[in-house]
């Protein structure tokens, strides 16, 4: 048992706890006595209590506002369920892509076995990824601004190696979002672009291809009018896909290939016109 007189001397923490009404009875009595003897400290504590009450009063209306519908738990739960379902759909689509890729590889071996065509599949999965994501019209409101430079940072981070996402503003395309996909060689990604002032979608696809020797730009047609230009640089395979005439896409693909090879152009070239919707990285 401790004699109350043996209590430690009054400290700043006691005064704060006094303001917050968190002292036990014995300590409270001791602090009260102290404040009676110390008018300056008492005035300070009174001011702090007044301040605390003023803050509570000023903020009280905010806590008595009705809860907006969008913050209702049932509403949030429904939103989470929808998102989970979309993710699941994404996984299903990715599995389909892998199967398609394997099928394309098999076709390539059977169809052109022994010719000079490189052993790598001709990036047919890029066209599938394009088809899948070009139809996605839902764009959530931006949590993060992203231009080609941001997307490069994001992608390099996700793929674990420096990757340049080409800035195609010069060709009239701005990035909309990026998606990650599994591929047999590791994480792949597709970045979707949209023609400024138009609806044409163009995608940049990249996946690891460590076993494939570097190869120049090649072209492949895919069902549905999609054209893919693809190339390899010894680390990754890249593809640019759109439903555009070959001649039109070739120029863009050349620009993309050059930028990926030489690195991004200076920041000024990636200037976004103000008023443009800010593109967004979608990690879903």
């Amino acid at each position: 048992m401790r004699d109350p007189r043996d209590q430690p001397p009054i400290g700043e923490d006691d005064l704060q706890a006094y303001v917050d009404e968190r002292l036990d009875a014995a300590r409270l009595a001791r602090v009260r006595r102290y404040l009676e003897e110390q008018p300056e400290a008492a005035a300070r504590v009174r001011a702090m209590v007044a301040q605390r009450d003023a803050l509570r009063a000023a903020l009280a209306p905010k806590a008595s506002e009705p809860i907006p519908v969008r913050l209702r738990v049932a509403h949030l739960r429904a939103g989470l369920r929808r998102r989970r379902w979309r993710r699941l759909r994404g996984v299903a689509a990715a599995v389909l892509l892998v199967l398609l890729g394997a099928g394309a590889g098999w076709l390539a071996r059977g169809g052109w076995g022994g010719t000079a065509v490189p052993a790598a599949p001709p990036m047919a999965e890029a066209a599938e990824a394009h088809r899948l994501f070009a139809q996605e019209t839902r764009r959530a409101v931006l949590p993060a601004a992203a231009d080609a430079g941001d997307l490069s940072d994001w992608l390099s981070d996700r793929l674990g190696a420096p990757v340049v996402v080409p800035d195609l503003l010069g060709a009239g395309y701005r990035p909309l979002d990026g998606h990650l996909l599994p591929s047999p060689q590791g994480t792949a990604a597709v970045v979707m672009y949209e023609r400024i002032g138009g609806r044409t979608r163009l995608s940049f696809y990249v996946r690891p291809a460590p076993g494939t020797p570097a190869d120049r730009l090649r072209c492949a047609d895919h069902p549905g009018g999609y054209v893919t230009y693809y190339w390899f640089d010894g680390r990754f395979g890249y593809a640019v896909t759109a439903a555009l005439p070959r001649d039109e896409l070739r120029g863009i693909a050349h620009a993309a290939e050059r930028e990926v090879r030489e690195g991004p152009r200076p920041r000024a070239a990636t200037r976004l016109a103000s008023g443009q919707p800010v593109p967004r990285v979608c990690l879903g």
Partner: protein
Amino acid sequence: MTERDARIEAVIPALRRFAWSLLRDPDAADDLVQDCLERALGRWHLRRADGDLKAWLFAILYNAHVSGRRREARRFRLLGEVAGMAEQATGPQAPDAAMQCADVLRHLDALPEEQRATLLLVGVEGLGYEEAARVLGVPVGTVMSRLSRGRERLRRLVEGGGEPAVPVPLRVVR
């Protein structure tokens, strides 16, 4: 509504108030609360069964706020580089008209964010020192010293009607 949902919703008014006090922008505040609630629903299984729900939700909200601010800072920096609008973007938010009269809120804004959050959690939201320490991710001693400094500074602001020229040192009263 399940009992769990009802318990979460009971904390929402306080979460909105805390978020608004930190951000001073009603939409941004509700975005933060939504972010917090979605994270909470997604991580419900990670919650300690004996833990206090209110402190847990506040901790998620505060963490989302801090990490969001880092992201914002980066975003504003990028936008600033691109469009030269950093000043507008980081300028003070216009407060709600209804709250404008409250001088104490204006003074509160002059406090460093850590002190502001501590004062709000303890003084307004009624969290205990231990709980506030858990929410802020700092030792209890730090909560105490932030409270003391923050309140002292606020007192001087209210009395002096302006920002003191030099930071107020912690006053030791013995």
